[in-house]
């Protein structure tokens, strides 16, 4: 690989400065601030704080509501990941078969990635509105069949579907690229060996997709822990009765609604550690086993 060298170091510094500044302002500074707040008790309206050590964490870890939020976050993460990757894989397998019109499909399937989470949330809130559209007919025929405003698991289902829909395109792009990187002659060889399309998929294409699969698993799980805010905020605001109060949303709610800066800071530290640990475990122990040469 070619490297660029700068004779004057200050030019190099000038070039990287904007990026460093952005990272510093929007990541390191808030993170370090959160880390500090997590060990202190902040006053809601400013004006001094008190060092409390691990008390914020002890309080959180003995709080049933917090554990509830962790539990539903894990459910949300696993469900959206499974749903999004499953859908993306099926779509990619079909797009890869190059059936009629697959090119326009391919572009259409990539678009949702460019849609912002709140926009998706609003659109799905409209689609799943219990008193309008399809759902209202269903509710008319079978009362209370679908009511995410009242029923917690309905609300969760709705948030999961919207979250998965948002993730599908990202996984789709990677799965399709992965499938297209498999030499055509391999599937042809399998065809000559007598395998039908489904068999070829199971025996040849899917095994060769495992590196892509694990990469996407990491990205999707991490994303669904940290990136669900926009959807939850627009669709349910964490309700009903905290049924969709995911970790990331709870941080916002406790911090900015409840003005419990310290509790929120402690929660974000826990979430950050969780995501780092997940990523580390997945890359360290799982991905290592799935490489072919």
């Amino acid at each position, binding site marked *: 690989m070619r490297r660029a060298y700068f004779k004057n170091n200050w030019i190099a510094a000038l070039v990287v400065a904007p990026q460093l500044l952005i990272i510093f302002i929007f990541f390191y500074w808030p993170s370090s601030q959160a880390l500090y707040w997590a060990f202190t008790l902040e006053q809601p309206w400013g004006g001094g704080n008190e060092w409390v050590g691990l008390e914020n964490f002890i309080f959180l870890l003995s709080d049933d509501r917090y554990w509830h939020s962790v539990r539903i976050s894990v459910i949300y993460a696993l469900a959206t990941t499974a749903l999004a990757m499953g859908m993306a894989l099926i779509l990619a397998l079909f797009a890869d078969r190059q059936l009629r019109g697959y090119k326009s499909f391919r572009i259409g399937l990539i678009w949702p990635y460019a849609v912002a989470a709140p926009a998706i949330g609003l659109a799905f809130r409209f689609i799943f509105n219990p008193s309008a559209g399809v759902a209202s007919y269903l509710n008319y025929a079978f009362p209370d069949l679908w009511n995410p405003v009242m029923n917690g698991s309905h609300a969760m289902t709705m948030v999961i579907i919207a979250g998965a829909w948002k993730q599908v395109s990202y996984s789709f792009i990677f799965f399709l690229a992965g499938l297209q990187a498999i030499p055509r002659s391999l599937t042809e060889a399998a065809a*000559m060996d007598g395998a039908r399309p489904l068999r070829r998929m199971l025996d040849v294409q899917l095994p*060769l997709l495992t590196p892509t699969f694990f990469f996407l698993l990491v990205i999707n799980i991490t994303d669904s822990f940290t990136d669900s805010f926009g959807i939850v905020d627009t669709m349910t605001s964490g309700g009903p009765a905290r049924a969709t109060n995911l970790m990331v949303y709870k941080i916002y709610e406790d911090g900015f609604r409840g003005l419990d800066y310290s509790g929120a800071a402690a929660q974000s530290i826990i979430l950050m550690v969780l995501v780092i640990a997940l990523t580390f475990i997945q890359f360290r122990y799982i991905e290592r086993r799935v490489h072919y040469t």
Partner: protein
Amino acid sequence: MADISIREVRKSYGNDEVVHGVNLEIESGEFVVILGPSGCGKSTLLRMIAGLEDISSGEIAIADKVVNALEPRERGCAMVFQNYALYPHMSVADNIGYALKVAGMPKAERAEKVRQVASSVGLEEFLDRRPGALSGGQRQRVAMARAIIREPQVFLFDEPLSNLDAKLRVQMRHEIRRIHNRVRATSVFVTHDQHEGMTLADRMVIMNKGTIDQVGTPEQVYNAPATAYVAGFIGSPAMNFLGGQLSARHGAVMLENGAMLPVDARLAQAMDGQLVQIGVRPEALTLCQPGTGSLTATFEFYEELGSEGLHHLKIEDVPFSVLSETKMRLEEGTEIGVIIPQEALHIFGAETGRRIDTAGTARIGVMA
């Protein structure tokens, strides 16, 4: 065992026709090599036989059964791919046995069969390895074993040796012939390498721009090329070509530089005035004193080939080479004579490129 019958087969991608109405009969147990430059449609033809490519029009029959609409697995063909196409996530044993696994053969029986076939190609020590841990030659053997184990009616080879180094290529060539002699399955072998074609083939098919120029035994193709294209493609070093005109009065071909090469009098009579291209193989020529031979050329440079020497000459700016055991290292620009025996002349129509034989008629296309 099965014969293959290819009738008026065409292939087009959109409006672009790449195979133009090919007819070919391949006998059961025969080893046929399809030879041609890249882009001549030879691989496409092979893939149509295999069922990996749709047939745009025409018919392909294997063992008297039209296979146009059949899936690859229903055609009874095995194929060896150019890049081997081994499954990288399976062991050598699983690669070889995959077809049997798909066919539902019990595990124990399969393992036994895999071991037999692997030992027949010298792979028994490598059964547990992944293809990534094998050398090029070993991968090639796995690909062969994977084809052999199915006991197919037809073997298809798509340039299987082109990724190997020269020495291994010769070795594998011999091995393929040996396997063919033992198994005697109908084989179709596609290559752009004329040496592979000449050495392996019972019969050769020379393709050019989507059509078959000639079908024949290696000797026939070498001794009586049907077109100027075939003549130039087969033989190394390549054949020399000179432009000229048949003249009944002289009973000869009059070359552009005025030199006369005597030909059969009846031919000159029948096609008086016909513009022709004459071809002579470098190995059929002899060097002599300037002015004493059939024509005079100027010396350009010399290439040493060991047992023989290749002399590069020029006749009026047309390159011309002579291969002979008598080695002459001359100064560039020196004049030298060349003797062209009459029987070494290949005469082709200047426009058609087709061979003109002594009967004075153009011999067309296929000679089976």
